[in-house]
């Protein structure tokens, strides 16, 4: 299908992008990789009246190591993350996750900032951001990941606000992200991520609720010396994931426990 008509403008700097969004008066949407937006537009489930194309904002396409932090520009493509030697060295879990997003064609175009701003509970980066206490930096402020993902597809971003960067702590230690899905290129039915950081474990779950989940009960149990098996029993505590075609809520809770345990076992 063909999207509804829209006004198109192209930004080459963050300032210009924000200005164009502002002039769009709340109706303009950001066009980055387009891999969430364009399919919705083709189905006419989204009909923005204006798009601001930020693919020319080269200042947002970078990966930088700085003071124990990995800074990833919002326009960085998944494929760039996968290939980045810096990411592989300092936050290999991010590279691993980037390599599991969609398929090679999606990874060529899709951007880190796009996935974060879209705030789909099946997205993978949001889970990593929440479990590692990452910060999302916009053109005007810094937002802790735990405050950024408010609900399904809902963030505190203003209509004219642009995600510019995500800042992760470096974490070269043991890690694993296990994505359970029917076909290899599908979104996760449930995914579990684990990362050793500062002597403890961080544990996150994807698609187990309207926002990414940090499994603090599992983290706490591990801190008290529980085995992966014992600790992961708490992975679904307090969760009430939705049921859909692929999984009942109960099955999702079960997968959360199984995948958490396996991720911990495989990471160690």
């Amino acid at each position, binding site marked *: 299908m063909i999207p509804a008509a829209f006004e198109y403008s192209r930004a080459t700097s963050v300032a210009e992008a924000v200005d164009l969004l502002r002039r769009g008066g709340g109706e303009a949407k950001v066009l980055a990789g387009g891999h969430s937006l364009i399919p919705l537009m083709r189905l006419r489930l989204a009909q923005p009246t204006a798009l601001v194309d930020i693919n020319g904002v080269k200042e947002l396409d970078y990966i930088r190591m700085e003071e124990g932090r990995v800074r990833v520009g919002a326009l960085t493509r998944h494929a760039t993350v996968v290939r980045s030697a810096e990411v592989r060295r300092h936050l290999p879990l991010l590279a691993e996750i980037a390599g599991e997003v969609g398929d090679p064609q999606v990874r060529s175009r899709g951007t880190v900032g796009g996935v974060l701003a879209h705030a789909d509970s099946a997205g993978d980066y949001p889970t990593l951001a929440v479990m590692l206490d990452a910060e999302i930096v916009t053109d005007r402020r810094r937002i802790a990941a735990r405050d950024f993902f408010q609900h399904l597809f809902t963030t505190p971003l203003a209509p004219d606000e642009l995600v510019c960067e995500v800042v992760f702590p470096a974490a070269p230690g043991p890690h694993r992200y296990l994505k359970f899905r029917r076909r*290899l290129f599908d979104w996760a039915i449930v995914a579990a991520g684990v990362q050793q950081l500062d002597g403890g474990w961080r544990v996150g779950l994807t698609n187990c609720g309207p926002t990414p989940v940090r499994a603090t009960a599992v983290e706490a149990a591990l801190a008290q010396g529980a085995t992966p098996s014992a600790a992961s029993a708490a992975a679904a505590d307090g969760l009430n994931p939705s049921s859909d075609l692929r999984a009942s809520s109960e099955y999702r809770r079960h997968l959360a426990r199984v995948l958490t345990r396996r991720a911990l076992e495989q990471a160690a």
Partner: protein
Amino acid sequence: MPHPLTLTVNGTGREDAVEPRLLLVHYLREVCGLTGTHVGCDTSQCGACTVLVDGAPVKSCTMFALQAEGCRITTVEGLAPAGGGLHPLQTAFWEQHGLQCGFCTPGFLMAATALLAENPDPTDEEIGRGLEGNLCRCTGYVNIRRAVRAAAAAMRAGAEPAATAVVGG
């Protein structure tokens, strides 16, 4: 309102004016007349529309033509060497019966081109990962996997594209 668009398609520079909502695949098919790139779905799953944008595999149904400003696009029509003959992947798909109806084939060829550019000697698992964004309904993928293996071997051996193609066994 049409916007100007300047890009290179299969080595030829072009200047056009296009509507913002024109998808790259429709630009290639309807403006450039390159109908080898196909549309098989609405939601970026099937991969029949795969082309190379600056060498990277892209689903051209999930990119507006205007986003290709300044880019080098390669479609299946641009895969074979300019002097004639076939690309080793095309030869291998033909020899290994890697296609039946042929509708998905251009997308597979382009995705496989990108895969082999990055990984000249992929394992079967890596071939699967490299082509996970492409659906085929006829072949069961068995011969596509064989064809990519065969093409990779031929390319590693420095196969020149065949000067002429021969039908016959």
